């Protein structure tokens, strides 16, 4: 099994098992297309969530400038928690 080229490894194994011939190839291609659509849709959804979170973060930062100094510590805690959430959600 090679290092670093997952696609080549998958295709080599698929070929060894006869998955790239005849009706098996048809099943291979159908699944590739359907799974690719799912993956792309999922990634788009995740990116939208991140964009939303970043927009929230930016709004919070803008709000900090308008706050009295005594409130800044509380806001900072909220921002750090939000940043922490974002970090945990990015695999």
């Amino acid at each position: 099994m090679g290092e670093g080229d997952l696609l080549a490894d998958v295709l080599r194994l698929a070929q060894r098992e006869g998955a790239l011939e005849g009706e098996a190839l048809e099943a291979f291609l159908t699944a590739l297309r359907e799974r690719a659509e799912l993956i792309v849709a999922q990634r788009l959804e995740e990116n939208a969530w991140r964009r939303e979170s970043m927009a929230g973060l930016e709004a919070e930062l803008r709000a900090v400038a308008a706050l009295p100094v005594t409130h800044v510590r509380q806001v900072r805690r909220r921002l750090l928690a939000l940043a922490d959430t974002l970090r945990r959600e990015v695999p």
Partner: protein
Amino acid sequence: MISAVVPTRGGAERLRRYLPSVQASLAASGDTWEVVVVDDGATLASAFPGTRLLPVPEARGYGPAVNAGAAAAAGDLLLVLNDDVRLEEPAVRRMRETLLSRADLFAVAPAIRSPLAGCGDEGGKSARVKAGLIQIEEAPSPEPQATFYPVGCCYLCRRVTFLELGGYDDLYAPFFWEDVDLGYRAWRRGLASWYLPAAVCHHEGSATIGQRPMAERLRAWHRGGALFHLRNLQDRRLRAASFGAWAAYALFDGRPAVTEGLAEALRRFAGAGRRAAEGLSDAEILTRTGRP
């Protein structure tokens, strides 16, 4: 005799909290019983009252720990549990009655009330093929019914069947998909997993695994899923479709945890190979465990 096997990894507090409910349910089962706590990593100071402590110095995860407990158990029935499970008192008695009433069962699985389950109950499972891969779905029901596999946090089975099946496959260690794999191997032999909603357990949910970083969990999830398909599927078209799905992940996913998990699966599979084809077909198993 029922042997409850409870693997734990540094779960002293959870055991203190949940073991009394397990012991109470066993006491109300109508059978003799024991509790074997498998100490994965050997970090517990001493055995809990009324339990037998089985220290495993090298922590290898859930599957190997349960296998060690099953090998050391004295009972003819195995109650496999997580360390963060609270049983309602009639649960073990009800599971036992059902298991002993039918020779065609591998395991009886209770309703598992859990915050992790979308529908609130992760005990019943169905399966279908979606975009090249077997997709497992929650399948709660007010009535008993076949389930795709017994979720590893709580089920009752005959010890001899567990051992004849070879127990959990270490290839999946430290966690994820080993219970799916075991249930599938049982189905292959025509032995059903049976969801019994009248038996209820409460699961805190991933108390041990949940402490691991998300990237590690994602990697283990994809590694286990790929291994399950590679090791078990026999149908030529289903296998080809699963390769198509992995190719899509390799091309389009891009998350290192996912691609690393798949690469690990290929490496592990290379040393293990596909299982024998004897028994029910993949289509028959999916028909028996799918939902319309």
